[in-house]
């Protein structure tokens, strides 16, 4: 069994771009589950259902749960176990960097992202996390860059507390952009042209996926090469 673990951002950007049917097609041909933790479910479903502006989108997401395209992590890992691991990750991540000026620890990640990482640690299966925003990815994939980014943005030196930044398990992350690349390659989109992929990738970028123009061009180049 394989688990594709979704943070809130990718579901939001796919929904806002009308790409949920593509996600459904990806699930049909996938030997595993698309997993959503309770903290993420709150962001993609429970909260927007109460906001008129996003109620329609939330109802579309609800359909994916009804159809079993998205499944709750509680079916795989007990909530109490997940919460305990999430708390451990939150504590570690949010105490790993401090400002030298104020000596205050900088809170970097939040419940949703921590719960995805926690599930990844606990599920004992092949897994991949889909996360669109850059913070968590940078923290795990290039912790030094996170330190430099915060130092630059805050205009104050930010230092690591002990070696906490290096205590994280190296997890694998993709974004909704790479997911849509796979869908495009498999012919799951309404058009198979490179132009259509270009439109999809930029649409994702403008609806919250942290991806650079350079990276988009690199993805498009791969279509030609393969």
């Amino acid at each position, binding site marked *: 069994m*394989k688990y594709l673990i979704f943070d*809130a*951002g990718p579901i*939001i950007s796919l929904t*806002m771009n009308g790409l949920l049917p593509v996600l459904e097609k*990806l699930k049909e*041909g996938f030997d595993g589950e698309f997993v959503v933790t309770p903290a993420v479910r709150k*962001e993609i479903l429970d*909260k*927007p259902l109460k906001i008129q*502006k996003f109620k329609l*989108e939330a109802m579309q997401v609800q359909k994916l749960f009804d159809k079993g395209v998205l499944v709750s992590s509680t079916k795989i890992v007990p909530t109490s176990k997940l919460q305990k691991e999430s708390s451990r990750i939150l504590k570690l991540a949010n105490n790993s960097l401090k*400002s030298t*000026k*104020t000596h*205050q620890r*900088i*809170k*970097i*990640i*939040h*419940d*949703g*992202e921590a719960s995805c990482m926690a599930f990844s640690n606990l599920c004992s299966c*092949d897994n991949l996390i889909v996360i669109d*925003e*850059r*913070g*968590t*990815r*940078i923290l795990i*994939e*290039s912790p030094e*860059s*996170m330190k*430099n*980014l*915060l130092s630059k*943005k*805050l205009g*104050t030196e930010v230092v690591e507390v002990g070696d906490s930044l290096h205590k994280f398990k190296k997890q694998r*992350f*993709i*974004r909704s952009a*790479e*997911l849509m*690349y*796979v869908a495009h390659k498999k012919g799951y989109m309404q058009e198979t042209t490179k132009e259509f992929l270009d439109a999809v990738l930029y649409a994702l*970028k403008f*609806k*919250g996926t*942290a*991806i*650079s*123009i*350079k*990276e988009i061009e*690199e*993805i498009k180049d*791969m279509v030609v090469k393969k």
Partner: protein
Amino acid sequence: MKKGEPEVSIEKGGDLFNIARVFENAEIAIKEGDWMKLKDLSNQTLHSATVHQDPLNIMTAVLVYSLSKIFQRKHYREMEGWQEFNDKLIKNWEEAILALTMDDGEKAIAILGKIRQSLNEISGNLALYLKDIFRKAEINKAFKLYENGLTAESTADLFGVSLWDLSSYIGQSSISEAHVAQSLPEAERIKYAEDFFK
């Protein structure tokens, strides 16, 4: 702020004292209707809001920014309900300064809440416009905090805005273009995705 006056910094101990200074400077700007000065003060509060991530710094950043937008639109001052709003604002502002100078952060937060609440009591269309400004200011400041390095979820939560609202703003951010944001070669990430769906 007058020329030559040092910039207000909240990134130190004595945080309430510094926020009080922001409020004192903002009070002068409010009375003068000087929206540019309010905007400057709002920018100064943002870094401390990123570091501290506490309600008082965040409410201050949002409130001062909202006021800069409100005072920028001079025609609001001609609208029904303006005097009512302005009088309550100044009264509450002075109370907030007093609370801050007495090191009573909780009271200051409650007073800032009262300023926001006072929008519900204004008559006419002005209330709708002002509420819209406050809402947009929350999203705007949340976005700025995201640009300062926090995750989208953290910023949305701190400002009480929806991730759905924030997503369009994030799309406009140039931060993804920064070299540091590219923490893994794209080819490697694509390989993760392709291998997983084999």
